């Protein structure tokens, strides 16, 4: 099979249980999913439905208790330079400047593959792309939430991973900042050819529709699994304002509301 025919990520029967004092806690079960190259896929579901757990497994930060995940046909054994991660909590190192936070990731991942000059060039390019070049000497505690997450996105793109994983990256931001960052994400993705696939966890229906090629809807936890995979056929580039007046959008939103809001009244309290 040619490489392009292999799915970027293949998830086979993944199950994850955590040991707790009260016995094993089954977070997710029976996850089967194929994520195709050049697609942006979102995981959506209520808090505690295990979508972040699955993302952590893809990142290699957790090992599934059963099942396996293949990246380009090879089993994921741990974190790797082929995957970049953007965490919800930004996770910038507060004692390093904006510049150094990006640079250190590049130096660590591409120590043997890039020259110093190439690293400088790439650090500058990503920081300019997220409009933070003028703030490169600042320390993270002096940045707003939106700026911090821009640095985190720049850092993940700088290493040019095949797969970009984002864990509720815009959850803590206000609506205007969130929209701006969504567009920056799409822009960076379309201009960084080596970043083929994007997987993002969200709990925002509009965000999922605006960004995704596929929306993976999770059932409520514990023992959550995939309820449905919904393709989004809205043409790219998408226009936020025009998009909402299409029937495709209305259908998608209706279906998602049905799955997430009406189908899970009991979990609403959580």
């Amino acid at each position: 099979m040619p490489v392009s025919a292999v799915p970027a990520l293949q998830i086979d029967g993944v199950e994850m249980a955590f040991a707790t004092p009260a016995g094993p806690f089954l977070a997710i079960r029976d996850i089967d999913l194929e994520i195709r190259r050049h697609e942006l896929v979102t995981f959506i579901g209520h808090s505690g439905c295990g979508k972040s757990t699955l993302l952590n497994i893809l990142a290699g930060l957790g090992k599934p208790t059963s099942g396996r995940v293949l990246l380009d046909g090879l089993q994921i054994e741990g974190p790797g330079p082929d995957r970049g991660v953007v965490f919800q909590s930004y996770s910038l190192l507060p004692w390093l400047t904006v510049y150094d936070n990006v640079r250190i990731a590049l130096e660590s991942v591409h120590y043997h593959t890039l020259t110093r000059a190439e690293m400088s060039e790439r650090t500058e390019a990503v920081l300019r792309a997220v409009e933070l070049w003028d703030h490169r000497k600042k320390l993270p505690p002096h940045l707003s939430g939106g700026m911090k997450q821009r640095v985190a996105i720049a850092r993940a793109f700088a290493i040019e991973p095949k797969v970009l994983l984002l864990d509720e990256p815009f959850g803590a931001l206000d609506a205007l900042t969130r929209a701006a960052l969504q567009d920056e994400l799409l822009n960076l993705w379309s201009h960084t050819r080596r970043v083929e696939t994007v997987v993002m966890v969200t709990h925002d229906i509009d965000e999922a529709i605006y960004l995704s090629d596929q929306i993976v809807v999770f059932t409520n936890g514990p023992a959550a699994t995939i309820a449905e995979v919904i393709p989004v056929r809205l043409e790219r580039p998408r226009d936020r304002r025009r998009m909402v007046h299409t029937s495709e959008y209305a259908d998608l939103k209706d279906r998602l509301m049905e799955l997430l809001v009406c189908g899970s009244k009991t979990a609403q309290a959580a």
Partner: protein
Amino acid sequence: MIDASSTPTVPRVSAPTMPAGLAAAGRVCVRLLVGLLYGAGAVGILLGGWLLAWWLSAKELPAPDSTLKVLWELLRNPFYDNGPNDLGIGRQVAASLLRVFIGFAAGSAVAIPIGTLMGSTPFFNRVVNPLVQVLKPVSPLAWFPLGLATLKSAQNATIFAIFITSLWPTLINTAFGVSSVPKEYRQVAQVFRFSRFRYFGKVLLPYSLPYIITGLRLSMGVAWMVIVAGEMLSGGSGIGFWVWDSWNALNLDRVISGILVIGMVGLALDRVFELLLRRASHAG
């Protein structure tokens, strides 16, 4: 007159204005004045308490005026040298500081690496922690005889006691700092594949530095207290010896002067670490 602050809609056309620089200078002056007043209050309480003690002790204790005269004489010429039995107070303090720095440096050089190991290796922590818990509450002076026996000199035994003193707070704080590196920073290091060396230098050390400095600050505080007692035991030189020597000469003016000097030096040492801590702290 109309109070300007209660009528915000009326533009203050003729309100007396002050140049910004002058206003700022005025604020600084006021702050200084308030600081001086607080300081005067503290001195007042000190002198009041002192006079009360003087009166209650049936004038056994020296009165403030005679002591302050003695202190002034001591501070006017702190570094005179009339042979080993008559050294200026500055030389005594310097001798004590030298011992503290040697013992403290040696103690820190041991405590920081061991604390780092304890914080990063649960196994090592479980082995060493009971030891630390047992030895920590022991007065460092209890180690003095062991120092005498092995190092054969009272001077070195004092330094040894300071060495032991400096271990515990640094050890415990370092171990705590290292073990509490947040998960998010560890995950960043994992995801971006930091080498052990890079993780140590760019994550673990910068994160634990404020904890380590806090440990050093506490160690230094205790070391400065222990040196006085240590030198009373060891004799020879140092501010502790000097205070005890003054007592033997029944010169309480000097004893109280010594207390004040010890206090001021201790304050200065603490301030140094406070400054270091401010520089190393990171509001995450």
